[in-house]
């Protein structure tokens, strides 16, 4: 009964739950979160237990995803890896959007030299491809999980600022914003109540993509040996260790990659659902 009441009061939530892709994404994320939380209970082996007698063993009844180059159980390591990836994604995206969105919106709305200044700064940060910015930040802070989160957060900030600015610029030209201004509504109110809500929908598409991309960036850093350090069961570094044995033991690369893909896919699906839920003009599907 409570749920029905909640759905009645919240049309956006109702639309989200009626969106097929969104629901699939939500279910996948719920499943991954559950796997991450229950990793200690569900893992058949310790993620760090080395057994050199079964190096690179193919998938079997005892080791579902096979073993890695030092005989560790890949299934157990994939489950533990879910914890790391989810945390990195959430922390770094929160950081990037909290810094980037206000900067972009204010810059576009105020215009003039503050806009030019902010955009030059954004240009400079954008002048570094995000993964390179993250790599350079890692070179400064040193490799490791926490530093990877900071590095990825920093690398996402300019994208949010730039996209928010272009979105606000577009909305600002709309006649209803002009109408609000001509009614004498203060500028900050126009920005907060008329421009932002209408400019936010393309940002949501970006936010869904960037949560996914933060998880990808973490995997990239892990792959290059700059993210989580051994023996942490991080998917990117697992894949990196397995690639030397691609011909003889492809499973060592395939399963960690599949986990990255499914996790990123589920956030992308949820992003689609959210876009639909927050923009009633879109037709349900």
């Amino acid at each position, binding site marked *: 009964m409570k749920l029905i009441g909640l759905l009645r009061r919240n049309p956006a939530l109702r639309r989200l739950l009626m969106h097929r892709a969104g629901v699939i994404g939500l279910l996948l994320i719920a499943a991954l979160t559950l796997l991450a939380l229950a990793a200690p209970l569900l893992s058949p082996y310790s993620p760090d237990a080395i057994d050199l007698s079964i190096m690179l063993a193919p998938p079997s009844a005892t080791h579902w995803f096979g073993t890695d180059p030092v005989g560790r159980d890949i299934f157990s390591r994939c489950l533990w890896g879910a914890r790391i990836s989810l945390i990195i994604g959430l922390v770094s995206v929160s950081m990037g959007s909290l810094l980037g969105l206000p900067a972009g919106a204010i810059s576009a709305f105020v215009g003039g030299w503050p806009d030019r200044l902010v955009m030059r700064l954004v240009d400079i940060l954008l002048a570094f491809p995000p993964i390179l910015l993250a790599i350079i930040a890692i070179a400064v802070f040193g490799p490791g999980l926490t530093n990877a989160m900071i590095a990825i957060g920093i690398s996402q900030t300019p994208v949010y600022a730039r996209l928010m600015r272009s979105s606000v610029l577009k909305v600002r030209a709309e006649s209803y914003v002009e109408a609000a201004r001509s009614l004498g509504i203060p500028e900050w109110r126009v920005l907060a109540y008329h421009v932002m809500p209408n400019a936010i929908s393309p940002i949501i598409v970006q936010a869904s993509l960037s949560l996914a991309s933060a998880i990808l960036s973490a995997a990239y850093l892990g792959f290059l040996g700059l993210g989580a350090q051994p023996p942490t069961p991080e998917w990117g570094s697992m894949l990196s260790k397995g*690639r030397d044995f691609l011909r003889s033991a492809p499973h060592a690369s395939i399963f960690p990659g599949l986990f990255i893909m499914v996790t990123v896919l589920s956030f992308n699906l949820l992003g689609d659902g959210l876009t639909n839920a927050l923009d009633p003009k879109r037709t349900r599907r």
Partner: protein
Amino acid sequence: MQRALLALPSLLLVTVLVFTIVHLIPGDPAQILAGDMATPQAVADLRAQWGLDRPLPIQYVAYLRNLAAGDLGRSIATRNPVTREIGDRFPTTLGLAASGILVAAILGLGAGVLAASKPFSGWDYGSMVLALTGVSTPVFWSGLILILVFSVWLGWLPSGGTGSLRHMVLPAFSLGLFDAGVIARQSRAGLLEVLEQDYIRTARAKGLAEHLVVVRHAFKNAVIPVVTVIGMQFGRMLGGAVLVESVFSLPGIGRLLVTAISQRDYPVIQGICLLLAASFVIINLAVDIAYGYLDPRIRQ
């Protein structure tokens, strides 16, 4: 022209930023170069020889002066001029990124237009499932899978190295598939939004064929945010190239950068960062100019 001039201070700030960041990197390059067994005197001599003992502002001014003369210094590790180190490898990276963005733009725009022109049809769902899978797949993983299928199992294409166009096919697809997904999603979202506008209804009402409505009226307006995305993706690809170069053993600047960071090779790190940043500032400038051309309301 005015915009091009505005890019100059950006480039100058880039040099300050690159110079500062690079010197924040922990580790003494003179110590690394001299080796663990070197005496403190030998390390100090080396530091003096490379000018690393001078104050940072002086080092920066010297750096700028040399930069103006086209001299990026010498690699601490190999002693070769940085311009040569980079010059030898940049064409590989640029070629990789260009072929990647070509794959991405063709596949992405095609899928986006197809999906938006037949919304909620089988085509739409099919294209978007593929786009979603594309944007969800790590480039190094798609690279490994492509190698496994087309090189190891089928034996059609080489798994790494350079030398011919065939060598670039797998790396280009590995880089491009991801970005094709991003472009497809953005162009579909943009087109669907534009297709709901009044002027599209007018175009339809006057009896214009649907494909002309999409191509002639909707596409130009919908493509504005997509241009930004393609611009951003191109720069991102220069970064993604680091990973693809690593997977396919390509001698590009991405691999050079990772090696330089591990060796604390300041001049090489500075040179690569500057080159990538400058390329990106120029790409952004081109995107801004394209923006104004595509949407005169923004040009002012």
